[in-house]
């Protein structure tokens, strides 16, 4: 308004100027003053604009842009796929499946008039939903339901209730369930490996989530995506050394035996001695990896690698190695075990009966305490300990499994007489089932030790082999192990129809608060199949079998027979009885 008045005044002034200029000088001055004033106001505005939009200063352009972005631009995570875990033939053991989590801003949702409907769709009571909303009343974010199947989440989202939003994620699912759960392990709700191989290989399996930027409106709904900041990187697949068919078989037989013997726990492991690959790992009790309700940590323990026990008589083949290497014994050397017991220090070590003068081989077959004691007294404890060390006892098996135990080899300054001999029959040291299987695999490999692996080996991979004992000694031990399953041995029940198998039983008193317990045992068996072409080594532990069949030969050997029988069948091993090939049949059948 002022400007117009001023301009009119100027024009009027100009007109009148021709008549007389003097009375109007005042008006022109007012005009210029006002113009300058207004221009400077405009200038200040522009200047301020330049200051905050263009120049970099405190609370300037950068600050404002940041504040704007803080109010509208959000970063969202793009979930990444966790790598697939498979068995050696590609059967899936752990699969990540897409799931949808539903979330809401409790401050917006609390006022919704449709809570009733929402609670119903979520499958919870209205009261529960209200309670949850009250619990998170001062927060901006709360989960309504996590990790739902896409169908169920869609049903809730389709209600179109304002403030209910979804988020994509992956959830781990284990198709083989309890059969391999101890080995594969678990992930937590955020998809990080927390136990088993999921933990060991977490960095290999984990997917790195990506990031994308989007613009949200006042209510927090995404208006549009601006772009991907970082692409998600899916995790890599992992093929284990496990053979799922064998794993199923071993699992089934172990669980069946647990039910039959009434044992409280059990473990079984089968390895391929030639490659060091672990083919099957079974445990009892079992747990379901697909349900965390009633999850029992004790049941989730993988006893095969985490539980060390005194190996008892199953160690005797290693003592035999020390005896053969000393040159003082062959497997046919006669040792007198009369009168069926022997006194060491203040202890009396008995045999079940007097075996008389028998060969070293027969001592192992019969698992004679007296015979082994006499051999140990001849050798001294040092050579025996040395053999144990070479076979990897007291040393981790380096599978990388979380909680893997190395067992204990005694390392003391002074040895009492009884300690020197108990070592030879497997007391006073401890080993895991996997260590025992690994030790026996040396016999199957002609005296060489091959490192173990829980991951499938590349067929072209050259596996380092380390010579532990001479091929002759390995062959002698195998001969004796086969005889253990013979008519005179303790492991007749380990025999497999049509195949020659070898192994050694063990029955160990469990240790309680008062020392060794008289009526609680571990029944053990470690076997090699087939003996004429030794390749598969299986170790079995039965913890506290009930009833009379508590010994290794009665409780553990029959499990071995069933596992080895199925295993040889699965591997298409040629039965010994039929090794003479039926050439006639082949020519008739045409062959390949």
């Amino acid at each position: 308004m002022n400007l117009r008045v001023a301009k009119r005044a100027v024009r009027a002034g100009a007109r009148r100027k021709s008549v007389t200029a003097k009375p109007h000088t005042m008006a022109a001055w007012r005009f210029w003053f006002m113009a300058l004033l207004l221009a400077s106001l405009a200038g200040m505005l522009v200047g301020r604009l330049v200051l905050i939009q263009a120049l970099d200063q405190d609370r300037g352009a950068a600050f404002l842009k940041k504040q704007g972005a803080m109010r509208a631009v959000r970063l969202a995570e793009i979930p990444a796929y966790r790598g697939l875990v498979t068995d050696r033939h590609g059967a899936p053991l752990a699969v990540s499946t897409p799931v949808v989590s539903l979330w809401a801003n409790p401050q917006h949702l609390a006022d919704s008039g449709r809570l009733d409907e929402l609670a119903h769709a979520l499958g919870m009571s209205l009261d529960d939903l209200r309670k949850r909303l009250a619990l998170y009343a001062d927060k901006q974010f709360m989960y309504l339901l996590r990790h739902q199947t896409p169908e169920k989440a869609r049903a809730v989202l389709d209600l179109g209730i304002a403030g209910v939003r979804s988020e994509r994620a992956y959830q781990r699912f284990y198709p083989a369930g309890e059969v391999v759960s101890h080995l594969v392990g678990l992930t937590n709700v955020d998809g990080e490996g927390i136990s088993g191989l999921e933990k060991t290989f977490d960095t290999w399996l984990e997917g790195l989530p990506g990031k994308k930027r989007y613009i949200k409106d006042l209510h927090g709904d995404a208006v549009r995506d601006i772009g991907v900041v970082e692409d998600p990187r899916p995790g890599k697949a992992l093929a284990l050394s496990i053979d799922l068919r064998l794993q199923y078989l071993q699992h089934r037989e172990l669980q069946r035996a647990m039910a039959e013997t009434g044992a409280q726990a059990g473990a079984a492991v089968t390895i391929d001695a030639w490659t060091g690959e672990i083919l099957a790992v079974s445990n009892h009790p079992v747990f379901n990896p697909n349900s965390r309700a009633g999850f029992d940590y004790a049941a989730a323990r993988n006893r095969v690698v985490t539980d060390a026990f005194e190996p008892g008589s199953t160690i005797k083949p290693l003592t035999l190695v020390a005896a053969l290497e000393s040159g003082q014994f062959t497997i046919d050397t006669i040792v007198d075990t009369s009168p069926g017991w022997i006194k060491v220090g203040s202890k009396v070590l008995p045999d079940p009966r007097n075996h008389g003068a028998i060969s070293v081989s027969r001592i192992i077959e019969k698992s004679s305490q007296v015979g082994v004691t006499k051999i140990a007294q001849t050798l001294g404890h040092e050579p025996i300990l040395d053999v144990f060390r070479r076979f990897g006892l007291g040393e981790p098996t380096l599978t990388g499994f979380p909680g893997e135990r190395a067992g204990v080899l005694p390392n003391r300054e002074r040895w009492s007489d009884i300690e020197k001999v108990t070592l030879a029959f497997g007391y006073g040291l401890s080993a895991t089932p996997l260590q025992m299987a690994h030790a026996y695999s040396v016999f199957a490999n002609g005296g060489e030790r091959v490192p173990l692996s829980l991951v499938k080996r590349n067929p072209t991979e050259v596996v380092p082999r380390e010579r532990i004992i001479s091929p002759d000694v390995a062959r002698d031990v195998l001969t004796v192990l086969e005889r253990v399953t013979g008519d005179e041995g303790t492991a007749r029940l380990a025999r497999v129809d049509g195949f020659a198998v070898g192994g050694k039983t063990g029955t160990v008193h469990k240790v309680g608060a008062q020392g060794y317990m008289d009526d609680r045992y571990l029944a053990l068996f470690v076997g090699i199949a087939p003996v004429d072409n030794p390749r598969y080594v299986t170790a079995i532990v039965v913890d506290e079998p009930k009833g009379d069949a508590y010994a290794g030969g009665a409780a553990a050997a029959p499990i071995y027979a069933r596992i080895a029988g199925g295993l040889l069948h699965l591997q298409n091993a040629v039965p010994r009885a039929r090794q003479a090939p039926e050439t006639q049949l082949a020519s008739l059948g045409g062959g390949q």
Partner: protein
Amino acid sequence: MIVPHRQTLWLVGLALGCVASALGVVYSSHICREYYATLQSLESQRWAAQEDYSRLLLQESTLASPHRVLSIATEQLGMRVPGMGADRVVVQ
């Protein structure tokens, strides 16, 4: 005939260029939006495909589980594991 001043020509040219580049900006941001929409639809397709894939993978491994195969073979099909006597060794 009026010969336009050289300066005027320049001005007209620049103005035209300005309009053209403005249209170019409009066009390219339109293309960008279209591509982004395509990207988003492809992403949701990938998500749906992955949903299907893992569901099928689980279905397959459930159907092919040795336990199920064994029980169908023995119970429904009346199959059994051949004994030693049934084995034949053949030279290839």
